[in-house]
């Protein structure tokens, strides 16, 4: 169990993490979600005692991480796949980490096999691709067979195969009852792997929820309507209290009335429809909705983007 209480971190004038309190409970994949610059990596570094909090505290199984005597047995972390010495062989990299916690040498070969790096064990890490580096970082995290695993943006920069591999790994780890805490700025990624979600933006907690709760609480479904008599239809829909957003000529985006309602209304007035598409809110949209005020750099809408 990871517990953060009033955790804050200031870099100069910038408050990167702002009074954050949350718990990461055992036996779940907890997604740590937030746009770039939200403070996810900073929070994870504070969990590991790498960064000192400006205020508040964070504990791992009730203790500050820096007081744990054999940390690799408690928390396995992949913070940055590039945080290795490029001149060291993969097996030596893992060996020095294993030795630091009194882990047998045989375990190094085991974790290399687990992540599929046995054949390149003697290669120098600097020659590794990003995907191989990621696997090496995961091998290091698994050395002590810890209860808690923490991965910072593990799919970033990976090819589809690598992404699939990480997803399967996370599910596999959680199926063994471990605590898995994984960050991402991609809602879609979290939807596939996480069951609990901690959402932050600009360092503040936005939601501490589950994936299913988040989707159901998101703004209602909408219906995309295309009609040559869209203007007429919009007036009729407005009279029914439906919210209508006009897109390109002839395109309407209707909320608060479902596809059947829109279709019936159009039929009753003899208005032809060229398209009638119900749109369920994706998790992506739910997430965007939650964090749109919190993103560091809001990009302007592209010209022509439907609004």
């Amino acid at each position, binding site marked *: 169990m990871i517990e953060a209480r009033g955790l804050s971190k200031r870099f100069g004038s910038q408050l990167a993490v702002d009074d954050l309190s949350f718990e990461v409970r055992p036996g779940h994949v907890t997604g740590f979600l937030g746009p770039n610059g939200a403070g996810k990596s900073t929070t994870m570094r504070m969990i*590991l005692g790498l*960064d*000192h909090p400006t205020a508040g505290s964070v504990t791992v199984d009730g203790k500050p991480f820096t007081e744990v005597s*054999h*940390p690799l047995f408690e928390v396995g972390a992949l*913070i940055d796949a590039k945080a290795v*010495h490029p001149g*060291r062989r993969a097996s030596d990299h893992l060996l*020095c980490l294993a*030795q630091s916690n009194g882990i047998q040498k045989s375990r190094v070969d085991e974790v290399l096999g687990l992540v599929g790096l046995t054949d390149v064990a003697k290669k120098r890490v600097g020659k590794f691709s990003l995907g191989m580096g990621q696997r090496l970082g995961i091998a290091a995290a698994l050395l002590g067979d810890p209860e808690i695993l923490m991965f910072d943006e593990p799919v970033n920069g990976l090819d589809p195969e690598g992404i699939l591999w990480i997803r399967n790994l996370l599910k596999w780890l959680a199926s063994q009852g471990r605590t898995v805490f994984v960050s991402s700025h991609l809602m879609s990624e979290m939807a596939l792997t996480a069951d609990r979600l901690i959402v932050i933006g600009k360092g503040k907690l936005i939601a501490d929820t589950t994936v299913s709760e988040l989707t159901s609480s998101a703004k209602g479904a909408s219906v995309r309507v295309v009609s040559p008599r869209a203007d007429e239809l919009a007036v009729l829909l407005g009279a029914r209290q439906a919210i209508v957003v006009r897109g390109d000529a002839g395109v309407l985006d209707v909320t608060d009335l479902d596809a059947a309602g829109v279709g019936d209304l159009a039929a009753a007035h003899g208005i032809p429809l060229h398209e009638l598409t119900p749109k369920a809110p994706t998790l992506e949209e739910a997430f965007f909705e939650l964090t749109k005020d919190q993103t560091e750099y809001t990009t302007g809408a592209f010209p022509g983007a439907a609004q």
Partner: protein
Amino acid sequence: MTASEATRPATAGREQVPPRPTGRSFANVLRSELTKLRSVRSTMWTLLVAVFFVIGFGILLGAVVDSKAPGRDFDPTQASLSGIFLAQLATGVLGVLVISSEYSTGMIRTSLAAVPRRRMLLAAKIITFGVAVFVVTAVAAFIAFFSAQALMGSPAATSLGDPGVLRAVIGAPLYLTGIGLLGLALGTMLRRTAGAITALFGVIFVVPIILNVIPLDWLNHLAKYAPGDAGQSMLSVVHRRSDQLSPLTGGLVFLAWVVGALVLATIPLMKRDA
């Protein structure tokens, strides 16, 4: 199976026998640091360069001195160990790299996630690096001493049994280790390889020059207390310049510099974010 072929982790369940820690914490960290030291090619090469300088200059000086009659001030022990002037560049740089390479590569965060007690990590680095450099350069110093004396022949040569000679020969690896540890301290404080190396050689080479050049008596007087001069006084047997400390005093001043720098380095080590 190559890395990219494995699209899913092994499907076996949890390890039947989860690994459990063995041994004492600090001994484990020492073992880990020794693995780090020996598993990077550049550290091995740098050590080899130090050995090459120490032995090479011993042989060179031994061969050169042979041809002429030694003067009264000639110190055959110190001459045979002249290689330390170049070897200190290697051990100093190596000391800096032991920690600065961890900061520049990001390895420090991986290291601290495995050993979050920062002072323990630094202590393990000090001991493994210190012992490794001392042992290797001590062997080199003895080889340099014996080859130089053999090449010089009498009457110039001295023997290990003569007063102060053994102490001076051991002074060479002590000096080279101390300079390395000074580098380690500066690397810990500054984190940047280039900056720490510049600072180290500034302290060893530039500070004494400045102290000697400025025409103020009390400043000139201070020059012998600078780490380089104080440390090198451990190597002298015969002739003691008036502007040099005695081997014992010099050794203690040098020790104070090294210990002081390492203790000072723990402050930013503990306070700053990794």
